[in-house]
Every structure is written in C-alpha cells, then in structure tokens.
C-alpha cells in the first residue's frame, strides 16, 4: 500500500484572478459522482469566487456530526463517510463558511474532500488543475503569512495587493 503523506498545502482562491468561468465547479461536479462540492458565488467586493471547504484544523462539521460521518483522515483532509452519513445536515448548519451543500433528493451532503484520491500522491486537486486563470492555487502558507503581493481575506482566500 502506498504511503499516505499528510497534505500540508492549502486551497487558496486568488480573488483578482477569478474570471467566473465555473470550470472549477464543473470539474468537481464530474469527478465526484456528479455532486458538486465546490460552488461558485458572487461575493461583494469580488464579483466571482469559488466557495470551497476550508479544511479547518478544528472543524466544526466534525464536532457537529452525530453519526461520526465527518472525520479527519490520515492525510489531514476533512472528509465525509458515505456509509455513516445520515443526511441530517448538522455539518452544513455548523459550517461557518457555508460550503457544505445539501442534496434533499438523495439525503446526502456534499463536502470537498480535497480530491483525496490525488493530493496525497502529490497531484493537484482537480479544481486547481483546471482553473484557466490561475485563480485557484494549492500552496503552503507558513504561519498565516501569504506570499508577497497578497493579503489574506480569510483563512483560505487571497486578495492581490495592488
């Protein structure tokens, strides 16, 4: 079995580069059994931005889940267990960023898994790989300090400093 490496990088949105083409949402949709875990939103101050899971260190969704379906895997990715999930949506309510989607027909929730089949092997998450403008990045942020020329709007959202 291949060694699982902890994923140290974080998914970052460069709000200035995003052009709202929705390719990230399309890539997520088609690769996750047609259930999107990444939405596209219009945000005040930035007309277009993918809304994606923050992979919180102390994830409220994990704490809120009554069925132990939300957990942190060996690679450090917050994930949802398909088998254990009852569709109660406690995680969606608990998420302070509103990035857990709910599907009422199938009684399921959609949760970004950071493309757990790719990132522990050193590959990019699919949304990052397909972004045509370079708005989505997968990078390390050391001690909360972003790369030069950027400011952090939130834990996972970069805004370019002009």
């Amino acid at each position, binding site marked *: 079995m291949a060694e699982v490496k902890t994923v140290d990088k974080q998914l970052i949105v460069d709000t200035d580069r995003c*052009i709202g083409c929705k390719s990230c949402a*399309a890539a997520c949709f088609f690769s996750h059994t047609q259930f999107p875990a990444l939405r596209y939103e219009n945000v005040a101050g930035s007309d277009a931005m993918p809304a994606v899971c923050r992979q919180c260190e102390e994830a409220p969704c994990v704490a809120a889940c009554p069925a132990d379906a939300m957990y942190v895997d060996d690679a450090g990715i917050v994930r949802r267990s398909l088998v254990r999930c009852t569709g109660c949506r406690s995680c969606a309510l608990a998420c302070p960023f509103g990035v857990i989607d709910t599907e009422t027909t199938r009684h399921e929730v959609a949760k970004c898994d950071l493309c757990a089949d790719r990132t522990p092997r050193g590959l990019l998450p699919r949304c990052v790989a*397909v972004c045509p403008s370079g708005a989505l990045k997968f990078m390390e942020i050391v001690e909360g300090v972003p790369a030069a020329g950027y400011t952090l709007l939130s834990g996972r959202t970069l805004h370019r400093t002009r």
Partner: protein
Amino acid sequence: MPSPLDRETPRCPLCAMDCPIGVQHDGLGHVSTAFPSDLGVNQGACVRGLTAARLLDAAERIFSARKGDERKSASVVLQELVQAGSQAVPSSVTVLVDLGRPLEGALAAAALCQAGGARFAASVPPEDMALVKSGLTRCPPFGEIAGCTLLLAIGDPFGSHPAVAGRVRDAQFGGRGNKLISLDTAWGRTSRGATEAMTVSPLKLAAFMAALAVECGAGNVAEALGGKNSQEICNAAGIPPAQVKRLAAQLKEAKALGIILSHPVGRYAHGAAVAAAVGQMAAALKAKAWPLLVSTNSAVLPRLKQKFGAAELSDVLRDADAGRLKVLLVAGVDLASVLPEKLWRHMAEECDLVCWAGSLESPFAEEAEMVLPLALPWEEDGTALGPTGEPARFAPWLEKPSTVLTVKELMAELFALAAGWSLKAPEVADLMSVTVPEPVLTDLIGPSILAAGQPEEGQAVVIGSPEPHGYTGGISLADVDWQRRLAAEEKAKLSSDLAADLGLSEAGLVELRNGAEATVVCAPAGGGEGRVIALPSHWQSLRELLQWRAADGSIEPCPALVSIERV
C-alpha cells in the same frame, strides 16, 4: 488546436486556445475527463472543454443510420444517397462540411465534389467569419501575452476564451504599471477584471476602432474612410473624440502592447471592419495581436475557396432560396444550433433531399430525410491548424466507435459507391501551398460603419453574452445535466441605462420583438453604455433575434434593434 511540438497529447478543439485535455476510460464504457497536474502552456480547460467529454456517451448520440424513421445500415443509406445524387443535376448537389474537424475530411469532400461536378461548401462558425474576411487569423504563441505591459482586450475574451485569462492575468500582475484595458459593448467578465473598462455601443464599435486606428497612425484606415481624421470619424459616428484620444495616447506610450480581439456571436456590428482596424492599428503601433477564433481551421477557408472554389454557408442558403439546391449533404455542423430556425428550416424545405451526417440528435436531424452517424470532432485523427496558422497533428481523445464514420471515411465511401474506385484526396500540404491575395481594406472599412442607428425609447440592441457553458461549435449541449444545473442561474443582462428605463433593479421578465419574439429573464449588469441587452450565446432565442443578413447578403450574426417591453 495542437502544437507542432507535441503530437500525441489530445487537445480541446472547441476554441483556438489549444488546451491539453486528458480523457480516461474506465473500461466499462464510461468516459470522463482527467485533469493532469501539469497542463502545459495553458493551465487548464474551461467548462466547455470539461463538459465536452459528456458527449462521448450521451443519450443523444447517433450511432446508426436511418432514412426517415426507419433504421437502416449506413451502407444502404449511403447507396440511396448516391442514387439520389446521381439522378439530380450535379450543380444542384451540394456537400457542406464542418471545417472545425481535421482537414482531411474537408479535402476529401472537395475531391468528391470535383469528381462529381457537385458544389463543395465549407462551414465555419459564424463568429469567425469577420476574422476570416479580414485576414486576421494568425497570432503569436499565447504565452507571449504574459510579456505585454499594456493589453487592450476588445470584446469579452475571458467569456469567449477563458483559457486566455491566465496569460492576461500574468501580464496584468506581472509588473508595476502593467494594465489591462477592456473595450467592450457590454459589462462582461473581462470588464470586471480590467484595470480600466470602457463600453461602446454595439453599433458604434467599428467606428470607434477606425477612429482609434487612425489616431494611432494607421493611415490606410483614414484613406479607406475618404481621408477623414479621427476627430471627423468621431463626429460622423457620434463618438466622444476625447475618449479615443485618451485611449490612443495610452496605446502609443506602451512599451509592449498586446491587442486581444474576441468576436462572440453578435457582440458588435461590422465585425470585419473591427478586425481590419485592429490589424492596421497593430501594424502601425508594432503591437502583437491575438485574434481569437472559435475554430483555428476557419483560417483555411480562403485557401479552399482559391483552390476548390469552395462556397460558404451563405452561398448555400442563397442557392436554396433561388431553387438551385436540390440535394444537400451536411457533414458535421448542426445547422439548428448555428442558424436561426427560419433560415435552416427554409433551406431544408427548399431541398428535395437533405442528408445529415452528425453526432447528436437535434431538430435538424429530425428534419433531414437521411441521417448518418458521424464521429465527434475529438474522435477524428488528422491535421488541424495551430493558432499560429501552422498545420499540426490533431490527436483524438479516444478511438471512435466502430459504427460511426469520420468525414474522410464518409466521403471515401460515397466516392467508392459512385465511381467504383478509391478516392484520391489532396494532401494538407497542397492546400497550405496555395497563395491567397490579401483582403482589400476598402472592402472591409467604408462609410457604412459611420451611420449607426441608435435605439430609441422602447428599443434595445440585442447582443450575445459569451457564457462558456457547454459546446458552442455546432453541437448543442443544451440538455446535458451540467447545463440544466446552471440554467437557473442564467439571465440576460441589461445595461444600467436600459434597466433604469425599464424600472428593473432586480431580475425580471422582458419581451423582445423584431419579427421573432422572445420572453426572457433578465437582470441589471451594473454597467454598459446605451440601451443594450445581452443574451447567453447558447440560448436559441438569441439566434432568432439577431440580424442575420448584412446588406451584401452575407450571413453574419450582428446585433439587432429590437423592441423591448417589461412583462
């Protein structure tokens, strides 16, 4: 379209950006796109390229031939088609081929028509016709965009060609003082991301570009307009001269200027004049220009005309109007997703026999007397042009199913049935050796671009908004689940002047009329000049509302004046 340096990586054929695409097959018949972490020159595929793989196993796929409602084998239908063709006068038989596929198919069709005396016609996306007419079809490698200190984006390239955004952003943020100036007819994706955004009326952009070109030193443009200077051009067209002068000053001062020209459906009138002005301006300023075609193969149309006397789609429509077209074979292009319904239905009704070789069911397939199964563009091996205009191998994504034909195979089988021996088609190298005269500037830029009518109260100009949802190259993805998911989010966009006039501060319904009618959901876009409504380019109602015949009888989708009323 493919890079000559890499002959094996599949590429997306849906625009001119040459994006590498990975496709994987799970061995159980299901195909999905794969996203390699390193995607080469362009970082990734837009939603069009990503969703195109859905067509490979879509429910609407055509895998077998039919005549009327009766399923028959392809060989039987081909035999009957040959019989019908041989009974008609050869000059009343036309073969119309989609140029957005490997060129060998078009060359085989040309050879077939030459041998049989039939008319050969080549179809390019209507969006590309302006660039083809102006001769502005080649560009430097897209990676060089990142080296520009000032970029002028005309139209909405982020909307029509999202993969160009990465290079533009690299340029924009690559150095202190670098700028992106957007010049468009509505508030689009590019405008939102630009350092400076200007909007011009869709009916006046050609005059604006002519004035700008003259101000930047393009003397040929001034000559074409009777020696007018930029001030006189602006006065004649009702454009503020100060706007033109200010922009020209910035362009002239730029250390490394790049001009990106996008031409989505019906975005501005006199598209060939805009393209010609851009070409002259780029030459005068020694700037690099990136004209964004939908299909890079469109550039080869003038050579096909020169060598084979190829007709255009507009010629085919004229022949049908005049009763000169009796048997029509259409290979590849779905006319129902390219033309307004009244045009393609009229053509189909005027013909005695329409045979459509296509990949997906559509209203045009239902209208055709015969249907043959055709491979998708990304299932055909062959040669295509790169963005720099050089031929390169187009590597297919997957092997085609055994029951479908490529365009080349279709033409070869028709020839074998008709003649009894094998078709010998010309090589691509033969085609590329043809020399084509440069377009005459006065044919493209003339006084007509200065006389633009403006919408009055109760009217609006309707244009296309290039939303990158699904395939736009002649095959409609309107019913694909991804499209349906986004449908609720789609609205037509109103310029702020028009929204204020209609009293719409949020989403609402409006009715549009100009001979065709449509009721559309719209919302204010928060910008734009004049009274403009932009409909998503893949909405059928857009095709119906645009103006499709220019004064010279050519078929080009142009902005049109419509009456508009709040419902």
